[in-house]
């Protein structure tokens, strides 16, 4: 089973939930897809056994072969190529690496080069396979790195995979969530938590991925999340109480199961519920 942990709003507890779930599930690989600010490693102290650089394809133009026809610029949806006076200008930072220009170039003047976008690493953490990546500083495009990281994690061939997703509802989140069997949306009972939960719920619904909600910091704020879930037919899978000892543990790199061991059974039951729902669904 492949479960994505997403949220919309940042700081609601995605990593807290992801680490706990990966710990209670057998044969599980944890993938920290938040390549702009990876933090799951802080709770797991993994022993890194491999590092690998990730590249995105960029066009390399052979001026001798280029006829200046401009076809590459016309097919580029990202405006990364300009053809002027029979020479091609490539704006590497705008290129999404789709390769359309390579196919469109009749004289075959364009070949595939690479632009470094980040570094992936993986290894073991208490017997669990753990993967994360760091986006190169200044690099605007994280989805290709997330995609590469997930592909690498697939090679571990674990029975279960937990995807700790980046916040928001834009391309990085969509890339991280895609392919999941189920998505857990972590939120908090605040107006911001509710607003972004609504956006994230719509995003995963559009992607055709079943989802449920974990309400973190339950007890603070109001009942807005419960009311929203009731009105929209969404399941609250679990409520994590708003407790000081969880925050204190978090601050020193203790995962939530060590701060509140009584939650372990709740997490296990939740997995069972999700599993049964998917099998019957």
């Amino acid at each position, binding site marked *: 089973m492949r479960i994505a942990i997403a949220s919309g709003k940042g700081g609601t507890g995605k990593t807290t939930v992801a680490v706990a779930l990966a710990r209670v599930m057998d044969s599980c690989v944890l993938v920290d897809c938040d390549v702009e600010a990876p933090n799951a490693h802080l709770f797991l102290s993994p022993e890194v056994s491999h590092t690998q650089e990730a590249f995105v394809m960029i066009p390399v133009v052979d001026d001798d072969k280029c006829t200046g026809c401009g076809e590459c610029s016309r097919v580029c949806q990202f405006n990364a190529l300009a*053809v002027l006076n029979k020479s091609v*200008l490539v704006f590497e930072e*705008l290129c999404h690496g789709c390769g359309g220009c390579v196919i469109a170039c009749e004289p075959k003047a364009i070949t595939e080069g690479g632009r470094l976008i980040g570094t992936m690493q993986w290894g073991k953490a208490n017997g669990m396979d753990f993967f994360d990546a760091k986006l190169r500083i200044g690099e605007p495009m994280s989805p290709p790195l997330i995609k590469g990281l997930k592909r690498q994690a697939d090679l571990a061939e674990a029975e279960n995979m937990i995807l700790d997703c980046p916040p928001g509802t834009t391309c990085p989140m969509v890339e991280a969530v895609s392919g999941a069997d189920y998505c857990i949306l972590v939120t908090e009972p605040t107006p911001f938590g509710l607003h972004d939960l609504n956006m994230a719920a719509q995003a995963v619904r559009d992607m055709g991925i079943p989802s449920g909600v974990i309400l973190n910091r339950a007890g603070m704020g109001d009942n807005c999340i419960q009311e929203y879930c009731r009105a929209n037919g969404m399941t609250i899978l679990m409520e994590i109480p708003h407790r000081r000892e969880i925050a204190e543990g978090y601050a020193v790199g203790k995962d939530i199961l060590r701060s509140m061991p009584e939650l372990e059974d709740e997490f296990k039951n939740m997995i069972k519920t999700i599993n049964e729902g998917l099998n019957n669904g």
Partner: protein
Amino acid sequence: MLICISSQGADLSSQVDPRFGRAAQFIVVDTETGEAKAVDNKQNLQAAQGAGIQAAQTVANTGAKAVVTGHCGPKAFTTLNAAGIAVFTGSNGTVAQALEDFKAGKLEKASGADVEGHW
């Protein structure tokens, strides 16, 4: 010589569009004959990125040798420069006025972008 002025409308009485890449229109004027025509830049208004690059290509295709606009970002400037098109920034008022200022040599040629991308 053909020059290209970024414009909010389709004729010489329109206001100069302060933006180059996302200008509504370009007015291409022949400085010798005074003949003017409007070139639409609508496709770039909604571009997620690279509007300046595309606009620069549009301008290059008109055969213009100079651009008169309010501001020009780095990628647009690079592209115009590669096309051998001179850039004059800081223009405002009507397109007709900008044309007169250009002809009178009142505008200064830019040596680089005067704003960041997406200003």
